[in-house]
């Protein structure tokens, strides 16, 4: 008897006990449905995160920093180690270093991280925020190549700034979006926030106010600065700018190195007077070398160059950080999530497998005589095993297919419900579930595998039926 005969016989036997077969198959379908929807949720989460990271172009950049505190020594209470790490002569993050990094093969842009607290004044309104300096060349990359209103600055010395919508709101303006009108909340209206057109904002004058040490005040009365109300040795420096554009509201996946209330061209920003330190080192460095920066942002041309360039910069004695390194950690996290979700589905499937064993043992008891007949007319143990094995496999296949359909329906409904709740709270519409083809095929394969495993014992039992016993006429 050939394999296909065994398969057809198995199917015919299933067809004979339809109701029982349907119930058993339904059990498998529920197991597979649970497994697929659980795992597709985990995969969907992972896909959303990695897509967002890719979307925000985080795979092509790294951050270079100077010497770090030896955290491991600090954790272990090794004070000497900490001091040693401070004292170690690390190369400074200065202009020379920047030029060296810029000249590395494959580096697209490198610039120092300059960010400092500022006060912003527009008309009569003012608010506290941070200013970040970026080169004009960043305008060709995400997220600055697609800013919703206005343009990224074309030159490093332009007197233009880009504003974050949250800062604009603090300045009591909200841009009206005709395509996506959002009503102002009651609190915002009460505060006097007004909805205005983008055109009325763009080109508007805005003042960037920074604190600087007023040496003359200290000289006038060296002891007066102890009086905290009148004697603080600071004064405000005002630098005029115009609003060149409005940024998108940053999402949780936005590159944190670009999130800032105000973004200004790097050349112009460096001219803004400010308390002249960007790193702790500057405070303690007796040489007073203020050429050093806290960090560099380095963007590479191609993702695959990242490792190589990272290594080269580390050879120079600097520390580097890239999201790529983090991605491995993120992936590990998702493997744990997927495993946890998958386990729930697998438990459901194993319950279904017990159902298969039960159904098949029952049907073997009912069909003992028939098995005896098949043996008497020449059926070998392997052939009879095969027939029952195929019965189990067919339950797995059919259950798997229906399980996928079930899982698909469940995830679609869950997606609609989840999106309804999330969008109610102002969240974006996201597909929370993702079923890649390998998951679909894998689930069916797994279903068949588990079913065959469940069929192993019944099939063996069928093969061992004693024909003399089975055919004894009662």
């Amino acid at each position, binding site marked *: *008897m*050939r394999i*296909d*005969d065994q398969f057809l*016989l198995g199917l015919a036997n299933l067809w*004979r006990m339809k109701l029982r077969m349907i119930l058993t198959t339904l059990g498998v379908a529920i197991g597979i449905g649970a497994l697929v929807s659980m795992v597709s949720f985990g995969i969907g989460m992972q896909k959303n995160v990695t897509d967002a990271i890719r979307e925000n172009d985080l795979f092509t950049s790294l951050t270079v920093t100077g010497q770090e505190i030896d955290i491991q020594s600090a954790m272990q209470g090794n004070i000497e180690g900490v001091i040693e790490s401070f004292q170690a002569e690390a190369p400074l993050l200065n202009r020379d270093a920047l030029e060296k990094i810029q000249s590395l093969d494959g580096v697209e842009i490198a610039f120092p991280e300059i960010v400092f607290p500022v006060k912003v004044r527009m008309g009569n309104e003012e608010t506290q925020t941070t200013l970040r300096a970026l080169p004009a060349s960043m305008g060709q990359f995400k997220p600055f190549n697609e800013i919703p209103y206005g343009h990224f600055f074309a030159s490093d010395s332009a007197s233009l700034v880009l504003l974050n919508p949250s800062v604009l709101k603090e300045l009591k303006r909200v841009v009206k979006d005709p395509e996506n009108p959002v009503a102002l909340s009651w609190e915002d209206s009460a505060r006097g926030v007004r909805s205005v057109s983008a055109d009325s904002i763009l080109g508007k004058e805005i003042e960037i106010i920074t604190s600087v040490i007023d040496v003359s005040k200290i000289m006038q009365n060296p002891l007066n600065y102890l009086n905290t109300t009148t004697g603080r040795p600071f004064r405000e420096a005002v630098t005029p700018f115009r609003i060149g554009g409005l940024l998108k509201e940053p999402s949780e996946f936005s590159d944190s190195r670009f999130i800032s209330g105000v973004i200004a061209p790097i050349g112009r920003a460096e001219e803004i007077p400010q308390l002249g330190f960007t790193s702790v080192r500057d405070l303690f460095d007796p040489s007073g070398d203020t050429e050093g920066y806290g960090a560099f942002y380095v963007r590479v041309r191609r993702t695959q160059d990242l490792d190589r360039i990272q290594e080269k910069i580390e050879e120079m004695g600097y520390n580097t950080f890239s999201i790529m390194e983090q991605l491995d950690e993120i992936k590990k996290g998702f493997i744990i999530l997927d495993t946890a979700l998958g386990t729930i589905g697998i438990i459901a499937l194993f319950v279904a497998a017990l159902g298969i064993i039960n159904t098949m043992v029952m049907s073997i008891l009912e069909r003992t*005589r*028939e098995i*005896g*007949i*098949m*043996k*008497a*007319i*020449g*059926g*070998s*143990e*392997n*052939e009879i095993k095969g027939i029952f094995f195929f019965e189990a496999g067919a339950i797995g296949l059919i259950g798997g297919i229906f399980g996928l359909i079930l899982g698909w329906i469940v995830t679609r409904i869950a997606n609609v419900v989840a999106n309804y709740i999330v969008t109610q709270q102002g969240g974006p519409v996201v597909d929370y579930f993702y079923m890649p083809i390998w998951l679909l095929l894998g689930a069916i394969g797994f279903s068949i595998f588990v079913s065959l495993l469940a069929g192993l014992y019944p099939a063996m039992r069928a093969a061992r039926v004693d*024909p*003399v016993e089975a*055919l004894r*006429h009662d």
Partner: protein
Amino acid sequence: MNTEDSLNPILRIQKIVKNYHKGSIQVQAVQSISFDVSKSEFITIVGRSGSGKSTLLNLVGGLDRATSGHLFVNNADLTKMKRSELALHRRQTVGMIFQSFNLIPSRTALENITLALAFGGMKRRDRKQKASEILSRVGLEHRLDHKPGELSGGEAQRVAIARALANEPDILLADEPTGNLDSKTSIEIIQLLEKLNQKQHVTILMVTHDEELAKTVSHRILHLFDGKIVHQQILRRIS
């Protein structure tokens, strides 16, 4: 013994013993039986129920294993065969019919035959043709698509005979083939077996307790009593 038959035995049984346990009691079902069966012979074993005749037939059919002794079919010793070889023996060398027919109730007459052909390894497209041929040989060409429940006892036994012959075995083993049939139908079935023996030279080993009916067709009758052959009757020569 018939020397002529012994020259050409298709089945040679030597000192075969079968003991089994019924609870804690050991039953000696077959006690050192020896005899040969020639090609084209119609041999009948008669005896009361419990005389061990069905057990003997199961041993020859390869459904059961002997406790000791030898059992040669075409010079191959059944007592030395592996389970898979015994399955092959049941498929190719012997065909069995039973008192209770033992057809698969969910399958039609034709399907019962094609199942046997499938076990015999015939290609699927040839099976139907062959199965209907065999069924018409036993006079059932009009009953192909009937299930066993829709057939009379005589018809069901004919289907069983057809199934037993499907893979063209060397020996047909018949275990009380008329036990469930009325006397008229019994005669018809016995005549069918006689016809198969006479016309197609099928070797038949039959077990029955109906000695009178057996006498009309058998070449030889062996009388079994408490697991031993107590008497042999030679009735006619093999033609």
